[in-house]
């Protein structure tokens, strides 16, 4: 055997030393003692409050348009009664319109928002100066089908809206820090906007009895939101805490009276020719549940939202008009 040269010896020992040192450094930097206590985060809960600051005393806060055979006219009248769309939308705004596009149902079945109502809202937003109007929802059934068969895709695209379908990369984890909703994937198109208009449909729901405005924010969540049903009322209240829209326009043109939230039978829906517009989503639900013969007291999430101060269930205390 040949003796090692001094130089070679140093090289070899040095190389081994570097590898060992590197391993030690990685171990030191990335050492995991295990059982890291989930330190309660100090972050403030994330919320999205798009409401207008000022509420001129002469303008109504809740407007109900009734008895017009044209849904578009009902929308126009209700918004006009609140002071017109210009009050809510400024020139150059990016406006997100959030209808209910949850189900693979056609307009006559009234499980999704009426496409004519949504299209009219888009038009009003453009007329008020919006730069872009985005129409979107995170559907329950297969989205492509829901968007097409609800008629909302075509109706709103035709009036210039950008229709955005849900896709995996559009959800981002956020800390909502609600009572039951802690951290959830949130649908980003809804939270990157200047103004948000909620355009739900009023309908029966077997578990929560009546749903419209506040429940519509289910469509802002991703993940396995089916778990929320175990405490549906608190989760709806949590969502309403997280999301406060600029304006709520409830479509009550055709109302699903039973078999909600999906319906399926034309006979389940009843033409009621009503549109409710409000700056207070709690009041909008408190008023709306009367459409299917309920009172706000019977519906726990409305009461919870009222108690949290998100709005009022005593809609009669607001300045309201019927047109």
């Amino acid at each position, binding site marked *: 055997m040949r003796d090692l040269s001094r130089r070679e010896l140093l090289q070899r020992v040095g190389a081994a030393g570097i590898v060992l040192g590197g391993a030690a450094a990685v171990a030191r930097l990335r050492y995991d003692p295990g059982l890291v206590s989930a330190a309660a985060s100090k972050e403030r809960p994330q919320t999205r409050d798009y409401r207008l600051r000022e509420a001129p005393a002469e303008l109504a806060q809740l407007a109900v348009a009734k008895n017009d055979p044209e849904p578009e006219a009902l929308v126009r009248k209700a918004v006009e009664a609140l002071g017109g769309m210009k009050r809510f939308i400024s020139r150059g705004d990016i406006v997100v319109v959030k209808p209910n596009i949850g189900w693979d149902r056609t307009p006559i079945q009234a499980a999704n928002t009426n496409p004519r109502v949504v299209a009219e809202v888009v038009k009003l937003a453009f007329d008020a100066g919006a730069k872009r109007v985005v129409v979107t929802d995170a559907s329950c059934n297969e*989205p492509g*089908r829901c968007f097409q068969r*609800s008629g909302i895709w075509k109706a709103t695209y035709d009036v210039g809206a950008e229709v955005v379908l849900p896709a995996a*990369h559009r959800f*981002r984890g956020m800390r909502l820090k609600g009572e039951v909703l802690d951290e959830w994937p949130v649908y980003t198109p809804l939270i990157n906007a200047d103004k948000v208009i909620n355009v739900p449909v009023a309908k029966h729901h*077997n578990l929560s009895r009546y749903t419209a405005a506040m429940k519509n924010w289910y469509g802002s969540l991703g993940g396995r939101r089916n*778990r929320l*049903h*175990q*405490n549906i009322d608190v989760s709806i209240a949590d969502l309403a805490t997280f999301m406060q829209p600029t304006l709520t326009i409830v479509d009550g043109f055709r109302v699903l009276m039973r078999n909600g939230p999906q319906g399926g039978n034309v006979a389940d829906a009843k033409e009621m020719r009503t549109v409710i517009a409000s700056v207070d989503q709690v009041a909008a639900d408190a008023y709306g549940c009367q459409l299917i013969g309920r009172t706000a007291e019977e519906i726990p999430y409305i009461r919870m939202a009222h108690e949290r101060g998100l709005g009022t269930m005593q809609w009669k205390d607001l300045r309201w008009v019927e047109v």
Partner: protein
Amino acid sequence: MAVAVPGAATPKKQKGRPGSGIPARLSIRILVWVRRVSQAGFLGLFLYFLFQTGFRGSFASAETAVRLPLPVEGFLLADPFVAAMTLLSTHTIYRGLVWSIGLLALTLVVGRVFCGWICPFGTLHHFFGWIFPSRYLRGNKRVESNKTAPGRQRVKYYLLYAFLAASLMGSVIGGLFDPICVAVRAIGLAVIPAVQYVTGVASTLSGATGMRPVQGAADSAQDFLAQTVWQSKQFYFHHTWFIGILFVAILFMNRIIPRFWCRVLCPLGAFLGVFARFALFGMEKDHAKCTDCNLCLVNCQGADSPQGGVKWRQDECHMCMNCENACPEDVIKFKFLPNRKSALTVPDTGRRTAIATAAAGAVMIPAARIADVIDANYDHKVIRPPGSVEEREFLERCIRCAECMKVCPNNALHPAFFEAGIEGIWTPILIPRIGYCEHSCVLCGQVCPTGAIQKITEEQKMGIGQKPVSIGTAFYDQGRCLPWGMATPCIVCEEFCPTSPKAIWVEEVDIPKRLPIAGDNGKEPEMTTVHVQRPHVDPSLCIGCGACEKVCPVQDKPAVYVTNVGESRSKTNVILLEDTNYNRPG
């Protein structure tokens, strides 16, 4: 080394050519280029159809029926092997499969032009053999690997005879080896989802950089791909790793034997080979002029002996024309109505082996069926797509092309592994936990080329004015169901149940519940009463769509699940007396 690139033998440098260096006829040089364009075009068309095999929504009005605008299953409709198998099994030719006569006619005029000019799977092999040749595929070794190897090249004929005999016995299991089926299955169920997965990871990483432009670019790329190549959500397929590995292995074989698949395994190639004997177009050779330069063999795709001194094998030739293009001596001539002195037109399979393999194919089917899977112990997981025909007829028709699995917008359909028995491998089954059957959707029947899934309408499926199509029945596991077993409100299943009236109905009950905190001084926890709605299934209304199973929040093993009992296609696999009617037509 002279030319190591098949299909790229360019005649431009005359001085590089050995021998007398006579360039090929202009018409042949042009034809070779036309062939390349045709190969690229058909591969492109195939992939485009595959990418379009899915529903991404459209601007059609709400009342328009959802259908795919393109005949995305077109390649299968033109496939005469598929037509022949189903003709033998069902004694009929289903709808669009009559197109396959066109391909047969083409073969009768110009031989296996399909293999060399059209087949997208063949083109893939051609391409892979060209860009990834191993060191075994250079020079002389390449020449050797391109000489006819009768032993292995016979295999495909034996497979063909076995599969045709199996079809006669009532099972079109040969679809496992049909090249178009393999390509749709492997690319649609393994390659595309895998690539989508990788881009998903990349887009998450780009999101994590926190840099707006990077994020924005990644999002736009995802949007674009979701609209053109795949869908907006990641699809997962049952045991698809196996399909993927086989695909990679077959592509890899091109490194050792060029177009291994086409020469050795492809039953469609063999089928066309059988008919190539009638072709009016073919090769004539002038053996005397051959100088054994072997340039033809370097470029041969079909290993069909184009060189001088031996007989050309018409049934093996892919009609790529590389040989005439490469030949510097005027030995090879493709022409109409050639003399057949220098050609063998019929497959040289041994008659005994051919009969034996056909017999093996015929015996295979009863052998598979005396296992317990069809008659005695039908697996409850074999939920067939809506509109499927009864199981035996289903096996007479389903060629496992995976069109239905690719098109299903909810990722509900999956290739069975052994659930439907060894005979049913890669036939479609519905796995509701991954995706449920969308109520108004009938797309799988639209793309099924063989009628295993019939082309039903929305009215038939949803039962508008008739009985709806049922694919199974839902059952509650009351120990796991939240309202039943844990005094906790839930009924997501009822919410998603699409029928009207709903097949799931709820019973309102007030039941005791123990508070989840210990009482004072370590006493038993206090009791309270809660109001819950307990779900029940109405078996006469349930259509087995699996929406309830999909959305049940009991994550691992759902508290409501669907099995195939009660499926409309079967007269025996029923629960209710009212559905048992052996006299029912059909």
